[in-house]
């Protein structure tokens, strides 16, 4: 399984990617929507984990952009906010099961990933 983590907090995605690699899941990370799109152009991924709030483009808009170009890619949202509006927007995009609040429990994240990938 190849994962793309997208969050403007570099230390968060960097650490999460290392923790996933310890669990034998290959993860790359990006801190902007543009960098994430470049990754998708160059490499193939099964799943993208997106922060709802990103600089320049919202996670929701980035999700739509990615989904239009890569229809097979699966998605999980994570957010630090947890406001009703964000929850409504995020869960409407991916379903409430795939909308996680920060701090994210890695085992829970892994469960969601496996469920999404049908493993």
């Amino acid at each position, binding site marked *: 399984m190849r994962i793309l983590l997208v969050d403007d907090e570099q230390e968060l995605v960097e650490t999460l990617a290392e*923790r996933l690699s310890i669990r034998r899941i290959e993860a790359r990370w990006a801190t902007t929507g543009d960098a994430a799109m470049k990754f998708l152009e160059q490499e193939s991924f099964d799943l993208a984990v997106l922060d709802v709030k990103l*600089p320049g483009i919202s996670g929701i808009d980035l999700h739509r952009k990615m989904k239009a170009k890569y229809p097979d890619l699966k998605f999980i949202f994570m957010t630090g906010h947890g406001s009703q509006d964000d929850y409504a927007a995020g869960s409407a995009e991916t379903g409430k099961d795939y909308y996680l609040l920060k*701090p994210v429990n890695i085992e829970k994240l892994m469960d969601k990933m496996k469920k999404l990938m049908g493993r």
Partner: protein
Amino acid sequence: MKGANMNRQLDIEMETGLRFFGKMTASISHEIKNVMAIINETAGLLEDYSLMAEKGMPIDPTRLKIVSERVSGQIKRANGIAKNLNNLAHSVDEFNKSVDLGEALALAVGLAQRLADMRSVTLELQPPSDFPTVITSPFHLQNLIWQMLDFAMDISGDAKVIGLTLGTATGSVEIRFTGLEGLKDPPETEFPTKRETSLLEMLGATINQDVKAGEMHLVLPRDVHQQLTDNG
């Protein structure tokens, strides 16, 4: 001011103040959540390392040093966030006090930093050559600087860099917002609106726009109480 007008003015001031407070505290809470998320992942990574060590896998000490530095860095960041929140909270303690404008501007930039990052705008605070103080309302000053920054971010053009500098003149002090490539005459967006006008009146301040230079200047009296008394 007549009764109905005064009530309307008070409504605008109260709503503007509450919205500003809400916007800042929501942004701060998001940032705190991010710090907690990083510390949480870092603690998890340490746990992973210890499990690996228990299984006899060697852990590079350099990795441990990086992880430790990461936690220290985030604690330092959280301290800065808490300091800004505390300063904002205490800005309502007194509505007429001596304010160090250099510190006030640093606080305004600190509070707006994350919101600017979200809009891919860089805020460049120039170190002041002197440290002017004004007697004013610290909370309303913060609110007005934010309203101006919010507008400035919309008109920062392709460069998306806003410079902030302090200048002094006899009896007044200026905060200059530079890099406003999208500043137009006549303006495309109404500014200042009733909200900013209300704050300007309260602070005895004015906003001057230099469209050619792409600058806005917030001119503050040295003593708002004196200014308002002089103006009757």
